[in-house]
């Protein structure tokens, strides 16, 4: 039964992933990313992890991709479309790593031959997520927030310009 939903969702996620890197327009990439996130949310739902699925939408789709779009638009509005950087060497390296990663994935899924494990009771509920975040991994979680904070302050400092002295426009 779940296959009916899982296969299209997974396919959509993969297609979206390809779209992110294949699209020429940065905005299209962002939309493709949105598709990936939405498809992932659906797979979370299949795992009965409603809470995580909704958080996925709210946080990633609702905040992070919006920020991406902001950045894209502000840059786009200012300078038009940037030239596409061509770095042939990186492409080669990327291809190699991608191939390796694919191989690892296939190997992993072939190795995992046992019966599919069911999600534990209460998986993905608000309570469980809360416990993981605020009890088990409290320290890493807080550290992450500190790092993010540093990043934000740095961004503000870097971007902030001194306003020019008051003069009157003509």
């Amino acid at each position: 039964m779940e296959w009916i939903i899982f296969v299209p969702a997974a396919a959509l996620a993969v297609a979206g992933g390809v779209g992110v890197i294949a699209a020429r327009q940065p905005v299209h990439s962002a939309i493709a990313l949105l598709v990936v996130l939405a498809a992932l949310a659906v797979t979370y739902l299949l795992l009965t992890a409603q809470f995580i699925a909704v958080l996925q939408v709210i946080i990633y789709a609702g905040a992070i991709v919006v920020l991406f779009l902001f950045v894209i638009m502000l840059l786009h509005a200012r300078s038009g479309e940037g030239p596409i950087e061509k770095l042939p060497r990186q492409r080669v390296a990327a291809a190699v790593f991608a191939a390796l990663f694919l191989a690892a994935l296939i190997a992993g899924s072939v190795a995992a031959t046992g019966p599919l494990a069911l999600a534990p009771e209460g998986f993905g509920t608000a309570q469980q997520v809360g416990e993981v975040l605020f009890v088990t991994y409290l320290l890493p979680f807080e550290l992450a927030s500190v790092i993010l904070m540093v990043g934000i302050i740095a961004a503000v400092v870097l971007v902030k310009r001194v306003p020019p002295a008051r003069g009157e426009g003509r």
Partner: protein
Amino acid sequence: MISVVLVAAIKSVLVVVMVLAGFAYATLLERRLLARFQLRYGPNRVGPFGLLQPIADGIKLIFKESFMPATADRLVYWLAPAISMVAALFVYAVIPIGPEIRFFGTTVPLYIADVNVGILLVLGASSIGVYGVILGGWSSNNKYALLGCLRSSAQLISYELAIGLAVVSVVLTAGSLSLVDIVNAQQRLWFVALQPVGFLLFFIGALAETNRAPFDLPEAEQELIAGFHTEYGGFKFAMFYVGEYVGIITMSLLVTTLFLGGWHGPLLPGPHWVAIKTFAFVCLFIWIRATMPRVRHDQLMAFGWKVLVPLGLLNVVATAVIVALVGG
């Protein structure tokens, strides 16, 4: 299994039809009521009492020339209004308009799905709705639309936070994320009494979230022509319109559900109460629009981040403490 799907499908269609009708008459209500605030009649010629006005508007918009700016991004230009409308309609999957009713011997709950994280789903859907605005403004390749969409998305994201905090306090009070549970928790006392600050936060946030006066900056026509939908006309514009007005109804319904006891009320059956309370809130929205000047963008952001968010945080902390003390 089939019957479950069938019932869900029927209910979905019904809800969509109802919501669209609600949208149509919300526009008429706004125009008529606003007119009465301004000593005039408002649309009263198309059909009896002007009741066919929204239908005329709809048909006209559908039969308008289909248009796309030459420099627009085709895909995104089409996608944006659709996202806007679909996100607005999606919310109705989880908003309950009444308890269960008996219907042909089966018990049918008056909601499509009682998701146990229902309220979060509503927030999630509204955060998707932002994309309609942001992509619409960007894709039209118009400076006014771009400014409008930047403003708008900044506003929506900021005020979503305030709404989220208000919702968290309600969730803490009710002890559940399910909207049905939240309504049931208000059987004796409406949450507007338990959460006055939360109510105020939510209400102000709702005004901002639906781009209503005094926070209707995204389409501040005195500044930005028509904001993000400057370049939209015809049916695509209608979809934005749907999204906007459905949003108003949604927010009114949510206020009803979260703070005013949902379907609880004396004498009348549940759905009536929901309708009455929602209607009252829609009217309040219009009343405020008739009276209030528009705030400036920086004032709006300052108000959101410096007043509403801290207030919301305090409220959440206070609620948590009280719940821990009382409920623990």
